[in-house]
């Protein structure tokens, strides 16, 4: 084969589009990394050392991770039995539940958070009396945590539900359920010991996606006034230059870790979430 005819077989335009996109991906990350190293030529990782030495960073970062774990656990507790029940017994509810899980696309985070504040910043009282049986959730710390985790559960719902539902499609949950029942298992045992282990890769990808949404989230966290990583990074960016760049690069690596793990466990299509 001559050189020219071999050259013609190279998909020229495909390479061009791919490279354009690849540059778009990489340049901002490279620029951030490069910038974070320029603080002090003598100590290239000074920005990272300073960032990780800050107690506020660990406080907010750990808090955001706790929020992420709580969101993941409660989402699984809420969504797995629901998706299971719909597949097994209640296919009539599929359309309405799928519709509800798409609702967070229609109600963006900025709107959701004001709705939540509006509802839960007034005390719950018995109508027409002054008897208050619950203080406003926004008034105490545990209440705010309930609100923010619930908000994150709503934001993660489309991805969690889709992951779980896809996972259940690939295993024969009816046969598994019948087998478990014939061995004397009750519903709790069926779901926790039979169904959950069988959809663990789907659960893991849903969980990692939720993690990617929650850890850097700003909108809910800042309007609900919690000391999470997102607002911390935002404030840091207001009066510092190098640490925010270092932490931005760090959070990119975290997202990459989460997505890489999803690829590893699902071995298939990636997914996209939206907390922009």
């Amino acid at each position, binding site marked *: 084969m001559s050189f020219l005819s071999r050259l013609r077989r190279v998909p020229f335009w*495909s*390479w061009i*589009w*791919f490279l354009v996109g690849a540059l*778009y991906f990489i340049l901002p990350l490279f620029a951030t990394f490069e910038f974070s190293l320029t603080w002090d030529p003598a100590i290239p990782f000074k920005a990272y050392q300073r960032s990780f030495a800050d107690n506020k960073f660990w406080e907010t970062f750990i808090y955001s991770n706790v929020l992420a774990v709580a969101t993941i656990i409660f989402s699984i507790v809420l969504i797995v039995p629901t998706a299971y*029940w719909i597949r097994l017994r209640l296919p009539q509810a599929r359309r309405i539940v799928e519709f509800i899980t798409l609702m967070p696309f229609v109600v963006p985070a900025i*709107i959701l958070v004001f*709705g939540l504040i509006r509802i839960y910043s007034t005390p719950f009282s018995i109508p027409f009396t002054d008897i208050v049986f619950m203080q406003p959730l926004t008034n105490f710390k545990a209440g705010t945590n309930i609100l923010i985790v619930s908000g994150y559960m709503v934001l993660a719902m489309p991805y969690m539900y889709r992951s779980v539902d896809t996972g259940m499609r690939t295993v024969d949950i009816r046969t598994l359920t019948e087998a478990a029942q014939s061995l004397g298992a009750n519903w709790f045992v069926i779901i926790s010991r039979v169904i959950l282990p069988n959809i663990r890769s789907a659960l893991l990808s849903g969980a990692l*996606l939720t993690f990617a949404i929650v850890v850097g989230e700003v909108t809910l966290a800042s309007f609900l006034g919690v000391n999470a990583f997102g607002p911390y990074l935002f404030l840091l960016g207001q009066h510092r230059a190098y640490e925010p760049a270092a932490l931005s690069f760090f959070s990119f690596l975290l997202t990459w870790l989460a*997505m890489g793990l999803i690829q590893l466990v699902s071995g298939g299509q990636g997914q996209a979430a939206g907390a922009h």
Partner: protein
Amino acid sequence: MAQTAVKPVKLVSVPTNWKTWLGVVPFFLFAVLFLFLPSLRLFTASFTSPEGTFTFDNIIQLVSAPFIVNAYKLSIQISAVTALGGGILGFLMAYSVTVGGLPKPLRSALITFSGVASNFAGVPLAFAFVATLGRQGFITHILRDYFGLSIYDAGFNLYSFAGLSLVYMYFQFPLMVLIMAPALDGLKREWREAAENLGASTTQYWLKVALPVLLPSILGAMILLFGNAFGAYATAYALTGGRIGIVTIQIGAQIRGDVLYNPGLGYAMAIGMVVIMAISLAGYSWLQAKTERWLK
């Protein structure tokens, strides 16, 4: 166990009674408490004046006050531009790794990277672009030092419409890649062979066969991209500090702002957003149904 032998799992064909619905009650309760009630409350709140009385003012302002109409216009323009730009670039990239003939490993690399980039948003993304295209940014310097081109003197500004669009594109086109790659896989080899046997050129095949089949999914994906940008708040806020007047930032300013403060108006703007998002989603699901005819 005797008990389970008498009560096997019912099959779908058995009519369900009301008790079966109890299984989904927790989910519905959660949705009502943390999704529907808050949305509904905003709806009623948008008919409330700053003094707490009933009013239509907010709704009237929504369509008549110039700064609100402009906020919607700006949001719609940014969303449309980035949906189109991100859609085209994303489609071409998805094309290059599926039917475009690039080596297989690049495909999985691209999919993983797209998963990362479409989730890489908000504050870190804004900072990354400041380091890239800000006044002291990496690209800004390269263009100035090696090409003699000062983009800021030429009128570019990262904190403007063009700049924000470039930033949004970063999470827009990876989303397009993620949606289009499976759709492009759905193009059947037989269609191309049949077209070639009938003497069609590559251009003819794309214009007359492939694109018409793909069109609903392309448009549907672009609608998702539109909504993706339309609801974005954190990225724009972190980048411009609230100086760019898109709807989400205006809502934040009306409800929590120091200067602008009219919560009722903010809630009315939120409802306006929900309506636009709902229309987009309806269009998306309509196109989705059309897509399924050809691409499974």
